[in-house]
């Protein structure tokens, strides 16, 4: 599904990504772990077409990212730190606007259903600016999946969420997975990573230093591996 070859990104003179090779199969749920400034978010942004790589090749679904950006963008659902929502619009209006841009059919029904799924149907027509962080994040999740993306790119989705919002988010990811979606998730939350992901990638200094599959949601296994790679050397 996603093939990354020799991906490098240089900003000014600093190398952020150094020749990253990565291949992700359809339906996988992958967590990207790593210390701050390791290049995790940059990697995600390159995939989301928000950053142009300095060199290297990215092929998604058999399409080259450079040449077929528009058709690739249709497959992607991107959820960064910020909500990407318009403040004085209600959840419904936000979702309808983004649904329209993505060319979703029957966009209004779809939007209402999504707001219901994230448990905010009571606030359907309230402006987003009055919402709390957790509520905004739920709408932001709904926004990212409004067009049923085949690939989900999540940048630290669990930060600052309460227990209810976390379980809603996990349910969304799992139900997308059932539909055959591929998920890439940058996170610091090992517990959630172990819970929903079936493959872990550890990034350090712009390079992939470890790449393994986990079974049975084994949290200690992940922590051990991480400490070995990140804290063990220095």
């Amino acid at each position, binding site marked *: 599904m996603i093939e990354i070859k020799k991906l490098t990104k240089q900003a000014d003179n600093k190398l952020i990504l150094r020749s990253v090779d990565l291949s992700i199969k359809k339906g996988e749920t992958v967590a990207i772990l790593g210390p701050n400034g390791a290049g995790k978010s940059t990697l995600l942004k390159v995939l*989301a*077409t*928000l*950053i*142009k790589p300095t060199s290297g090749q990215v092929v998604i679904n058999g399409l080259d990212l450079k040449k077929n950006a*528009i*058709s690739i*963008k*249709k497959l*992607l659902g*991107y959820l*960064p730190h*910020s*909500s*990407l*929502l*318009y*403040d*004085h*619009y209600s959840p419904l*209006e936000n979702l309808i*606007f*983004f649904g*329209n*841009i*993505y*060319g979703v059919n029957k966009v209004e029904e779809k939007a209402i259903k999504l707001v219901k799924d994230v448990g905010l149907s009571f606030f359907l027509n309230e402006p987003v600016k009055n919402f709390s962080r957790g509520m905004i994040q739920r709408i932001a999740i709904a*926004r990212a999946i409004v067009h049923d993306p085949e690939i989900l790119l999540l940048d630290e989705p669990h930060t600052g969420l309460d227990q209810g919002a976390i379980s809603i988010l996990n349910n969304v990811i799992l139900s997308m997975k059932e539909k055959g979606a591929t998920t890439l998730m940058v996170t610091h939350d090992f517990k959630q990573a172990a819970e929903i992901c079936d493959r872990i990638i550890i990034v350090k200094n712009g390079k992939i230093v470890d790449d393994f599959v986990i079974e049975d949601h084994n949290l200690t296994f992940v922590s051990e591996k991480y400490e070995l790679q990140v804290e063990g050397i220095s």
Partner: protein
Amino acid sequence: MNQMRTALFLAKKDLYSELKTKQILVTQIIFAALVIVVFSFAFDPANNTTKAVIPGVIWVIIVFSGILGLNRSFISEQRNDTIQGLLVAPMEATSIYLGKFLANFTMMLIVELVSIPFLFLLFDFKFLGSIPYFILVIFLGSFGFIAIGTFLAALAANSKSSEMLLPLLLFPITTPILIGVVQATRIILTNMEKFSSALAWIQLVTAYDVIFFVVCFLLIDYVLEV
């Protein structure tokens, strides 16, 4: 055309959001009214020679209130990083430009619709020229100004002090439009005998509009690229 469709969604989004908050439009109109009042202090409305400065005043209003709207056009997308939401969406950069242009242009026309009659009223201006041509000149001038303005607003939005940068970028580039439309407006409002010369100015402004609309269309990819 798909490009046009997304552009219309975007323009609708901006205008609808303006309808809800009424921030920019109200500011623009009040600002225009204030400029008129300031001009009435600077040039005595009772004096007959004042009529000569009216064409200039019209364009001063349009330019200054226009730049208020242009400044907000891309800065407003920085809140919650909604510009990223537009950039990851499957549409061309030209759609974003076109959508923003349509929204800004509509708002500019509304401001003109309110402030120009107000100006004529306050300065007790007797309209002698041809109204259709006057409207045409206003339309063409605003079109060019907003087309290049939207483009440069997208460029300036990358800077932290974009509100200060935009006028510095925009005014020198739009000099030909400003010269052309002020001359054409003056002839149409006060001296219809020289109409052929006004027509020449209109042609110059139209040529400018076409050239820069095309150039902006070609280059906007590079401005919105990340």
